């Protein structure tokens, strides 16, 4: 069963269109939503949560979010970039207003998380650092027994140690409690470490939605000495680098001996696919 199924999610703005976005997050998986700034990651997450009015279907554990909005949202733990709400209120006041919405609220677990995250409920939101705000949002989301965590760039603004700690917590949740996770990020090293699947969005369209391993196995990174070699090899998204040119090649492509080949990372794939996309659009424009 899929924890999250998104079908044909569409949102039209005057200058941007989220175009029939479809993907799923299998139960117990961590899916990373990646793409450059303005690609539509946050719009997708807002559309899933009905923060914005969209067309298309969203189902969480098989239940339609429009038909069962209240029940479905109780299964979801949402963590925005940080906790940007009620800066003048104390964490205690916010928790008191927030917890009654969740019949499954676990005060013991919440208090344990506060200790783990070194958070004091007496503090006001404005007194928290960015990292602390993310941790507070996470503590709220985890304390009501969410089955699906949806996070919009939760690791942005966190120092490397806090990011490591965050990744550990997510992995622990998935392993011990079977939680499913969808999170958007720019920090692909976090994805390499914890994600099972990748959803790659560009210009409001899904380019890739597959297991991470499958994506990494799909391409290899080729290093060319000249642009002519790269063009001849039909490399994808060729760009100049310090020593020659780089481009992606499908894994099964036969290559000449003077081309050096290495494994790809998510960063390489994003950079070269985006470049190929840009070239395509430029060609269409002309």
């Amino acid at each position: 069963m899929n924890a999250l199924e998104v079908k044909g999610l569409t949102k039209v703005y005057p200058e941007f269109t989220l175009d029939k976005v479809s993907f799923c997050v299998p139960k117990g998986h961590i899916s990373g939503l990646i793409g450059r700034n303005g690609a539509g990651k946050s719009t997708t997450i807002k559309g899933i949560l009905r923060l914005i009015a969209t067309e298309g279907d969203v189902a969480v554990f098989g239940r339609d979010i429009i038909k069962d909005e209240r029940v479905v949202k109780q299964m979801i733990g949402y963590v925005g970039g940080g906790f940007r709400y009620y800066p003048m209120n104390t964490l205690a006041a916010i928790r008191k207003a927030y917890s009654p919405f969740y019949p499954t609220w676990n005060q013991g677990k919440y208090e344990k998380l506060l200790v783990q995250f070194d958070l004091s409920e007496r503090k006001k939101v404005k007194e928290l650092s960015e990292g602390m705000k993310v941790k507070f949002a996470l503590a709220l989301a985890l304390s009501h027994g969410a089955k699906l965590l949806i996070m919009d760039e939760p690791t942005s603004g966190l120092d490397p140690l806090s990011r490591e700690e965050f990744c550990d917590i997510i992995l622990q949740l998935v392993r011990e409690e079977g939680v499913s996770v969808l999170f958007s990020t720019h920090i692909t090293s976090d994805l390499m470490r914890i994600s099972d699947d990748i959803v790659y969005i560009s210009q409001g369209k899904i380019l890739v939605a597959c297991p991470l391993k499958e994506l990494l196995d799909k391409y290899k990174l080729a290093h060319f000495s000249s642009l002519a070699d790269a063009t001849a090899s039909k490399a994808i998204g060729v760009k100049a680098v310090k020593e020659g040119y780089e481009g992606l090649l499908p894994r099964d492509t036969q290559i000449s001996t003077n081309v050096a080949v290495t494994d790809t990372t998510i960063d390489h794939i994003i950079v070269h696919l985006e470049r190929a996309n840009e070239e395509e659009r430029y060609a269409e424009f002309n």
Partner: protein
Amino acid sequence: MLNLIKKEIALCMHPTAFIFLFLAVLVFVPNYPYEVIFFFSCLSVFFCCMMTRENGDIAFSCALPVKKEHIPLAKMLVVFGLQGIILLLVGIIGAVKGAVLPAEQYVNQAGISANLALVGNGAVLLGVFNLIFFPRYFKSPDKIGVPFVIGAVAVFLLIGIFIVLRWATPLYSVTLNGLNSVNTGAKAAALIIGVVIYIILSAISCKLSMRHFQRYDA
């Protein structure tokens, strides 16, 4: 819904929402257009909406396990509660004034006396404000100024009309003016009519606001 209302009171109420309730004592001020008291109630709604925006409350609320259309409804129900309290306070304090002050001091040269008919007038004012302000506000809760200015202008126009009626028509200057103990039936009827108008206008306002908010992108 109850949880949303509690959250509103705990996190979104500006102190003026409660402080302005005490302005009901302005009915003791001699020769004052008492309908203005109800404008302060409208002003406190404006401050609460500002607080909602500064706190990012709409986005926070939309992520909670509630129906989206219940978010404006909860906010409006809290405001209706506060409006009910100010109407009640003006009625009670007006009656106290009538009981403790000599009859000649009860006469108001700037408008209608602080009696049941004034509460009816106040209900009409608040109903009109609700109908004008909330549906516009919930189209885009980030923009509070224009809906409030339109609502406030309508309220002051209506206050002006009530003051003119006080001097131009026998109904307002005689029948509905003065102590509650005089022409009690007519004043009670004015109160009931005002409350009915308030309920109808506020209900329409709720319907429109909920519909507009469904299309809002948080």
